[in-house]
């Protein structure tokens, strides 16, 4: 899922200083699961914005809402229910949601309440780690299912580098060397000869280096 983290409230207060009626809009997708922008977080941010504005003696009316997702047109359309009640939207969705509101609500100003961080998973309650870089050309079949694009500091296709020490990365002793893990995984599954595979020079175009990516499924379009 997409992992996000709430921005400092002072930054959000600064964004919306001039607005008197604000719609704080959560998303029930990824940001609910990673506790950054679901219904509960909407309630907390709304309270913090009201408190911050009280302190500044600049009262504000906050409308609270959440959408099933903010990355689908049909759900953005359901924002009609709040038409005329707000002057600005503070979206607690990932950057996709903010962009969708900006794209589809021509007359609405929308501001981000979270920093969209990475594609990851919850390794234990309250801890999320990056697992995928969304690079558009998956090579996990060569690497025992472990991703060097997202999890190697250098995104090496042929590792480990000389900075791998005792299974840890040279950037930080708390970071596992993913190439060590790939080696161990291949060994444990009887495929360590796969380490002899030399990955060719990679074409990064599918990773976004060819501009914004679009994906069309002809069988699904009407």
């Amino acid at each position: 899922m997409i992992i996000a983290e709430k921005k400092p409230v002072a930054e959000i207060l600064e964004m919306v200083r001039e607005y008197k009626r604000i719609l704080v809009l959560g998303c029930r997708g990824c940001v609910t699961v990673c506790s950054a922008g679901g219904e509960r977080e909407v309630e907390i941010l709304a309270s913090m914005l009201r408190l911050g504005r009280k302190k500044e003696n600049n009262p504000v009316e906050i409308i609270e809402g959440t959408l099933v997702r903010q990355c689908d047109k049909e759900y953005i359309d359901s924002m009609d229910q709040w038409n005329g009640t707000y002057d600005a939207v503070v979206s607690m969705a990932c950057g996709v949601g903010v962009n969708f509101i900006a794209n589809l609500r021509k007359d609405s100003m929308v501001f981000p309440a979270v920093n969209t961080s990475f594609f990851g998973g919850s390794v234990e309650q309250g801890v999320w780690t990056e697992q995928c870089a969304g690079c558009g050309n998956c090579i996990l079949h060569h690497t025992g299912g472990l991703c060097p694009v997202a999890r190697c500091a250098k995104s090496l296709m042929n590792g480990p580098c000389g900075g791998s020490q005792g299974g840890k990365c040279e950037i930080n002793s708390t970071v596992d060397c993913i190439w060590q893990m790939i080696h161990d995984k291949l060994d444990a599954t009887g495929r360590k000869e796969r380490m002899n595979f030399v990955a060719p020079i990679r074409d990064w175009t599918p990773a976004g280096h060819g501009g914004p990516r679009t994906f069309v499924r002809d069988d699904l379009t009407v």
Partner: protein
Amino acid sequence: MSEFIPDIRAFCCHYTSQQACADNGKGLKEAGFPENVSLDRLTCTGKLQVSALLAAFENGADAVYVVGCPADSCHNVKGSLRAAKRVSAVKKALAELAVEEGRISMYHLDRGLHPEFIAAAREVDAKTRAMGPSPFKGESK
């Protein structure tokens, strides 16, 4: 200038406050529990949400505190630990809003009416009087 009497909200679990609330709080009053502290009894402090603590400030509290079971012997195993985490989250929220973190605090106390239950209330009262009114009231010193 009139004396500042802080509005203090205490959230206590059923166990740490059960004796305190016997006889409609008569024992509390006699023991010197500050009258400006209002008690909100919960089945367990683990039930408290960050939003409920923030709402207390929105509703005019100058300070808020939570009393839960001892960290290693909560009646509901981890309830008071969860409450302590939420108090920490509110401390962080107050810091983000440039307001004294000391306006919220957590106490872990044994069940029943102990002098510590009174002492906690008096400590929060004294600390809050020293800090002055909540900046969220728009009348801070």
